């Protein structure tokens, strides 16, 4: 009985740990830019927002719409000032930042 309890407890712990390892998504921010016409040159955006900013879970880049969609980790974000600096540091012109963007609605 004790062994079964211990085994079930261990399984529960492992299941909880596996869910915790995958970060939950939080806020989505849409960034409108100018100059995003070259895919090869835009590779840096993935490097900037993927590796250098742990607050960002992932990004989508649209050359057609001239947008960068930032998917933040839950309870994490970057200020508008920080986002603006990262965009201009990559050589693009910032047009606008839209907070709490819903990709499904738009």
């Amino acid at each position: 009985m004790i062994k079964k309890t211990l085994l079930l407890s261990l399984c529960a712990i492992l299941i909880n740990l596996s869910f915790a390892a995958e970060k939950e998504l939080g806020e989505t921010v849409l960034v409108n830019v100018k100059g995003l016409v070259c895919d090869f040159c835009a590779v840096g955006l993935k490097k900037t927002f993927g590796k250098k900013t742990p607050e960002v879970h992932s990004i989508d880049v649209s050359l057609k719409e001239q947008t960068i969609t930032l998917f933040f980790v839950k309870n994490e974000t970057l200020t508008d000032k920080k986002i603006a600096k990262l965009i201009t540091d990559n050589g693009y012109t910032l047009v606008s930042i839209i907070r709490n963007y819903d990709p499904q609605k738009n």
Partner: protein
Amino acid sequence: MLRIVFILSALLVTAKARPISYAGGWTFMSMNNWESSIAHYHYSPTAFESFGISLENYNESNRYDTNFQFNKLIKRKNTRTSQANLYLKTKAGLAFEGNNEYFNSHLGLAADWETRRYFTSYETALHYSDDLDNGSFHQQARVGIAPYIAEFGDLHTWLMLQVEHHPEEEQDSQQFIVTPLVRLFKGAYLTEFGINSNGNAIINLIIRF
């Protein structure tokens, strides 16, 4: 070691691309044209300048150049549909010919304008090597069109036409060189290939890290 680099470079021919990468990016480029083979590595601390080293071998002479390079984005104009750039390209170092070594320098301006469909660029350069061929002037222009518009992360294809002008060359076939090219890139990898008007095959490779 230099010969190994140049042999590798000989497999990859004339790469021309923006001389500055994204902030914090490393780039390897190989340039191998009718007169030289060049291996170029650069680091871009910002999206506005890059520092690098180039190793150059001149095919018709026993000459090797080792240069430090600095490139600067002078001006960029971004619009909703295009980007235009003006770069200053400089390099300086030593040229080795036989047992002799000479100061070597290069100063150039490069400009490009592109949309998702059209591309055009122009580059001009003054090259000086003390006691070797003194100074030389070169210029080059490209136009290109994308047969289809690709999205971010897709395979991009460009059809390009490059025209080079080397006024100091004695033969007409060497003064003006025309090269139709196909450019492909996906992610951090870019390759170009074609055959120029002198019948030389061209394959380019650029990798961004």
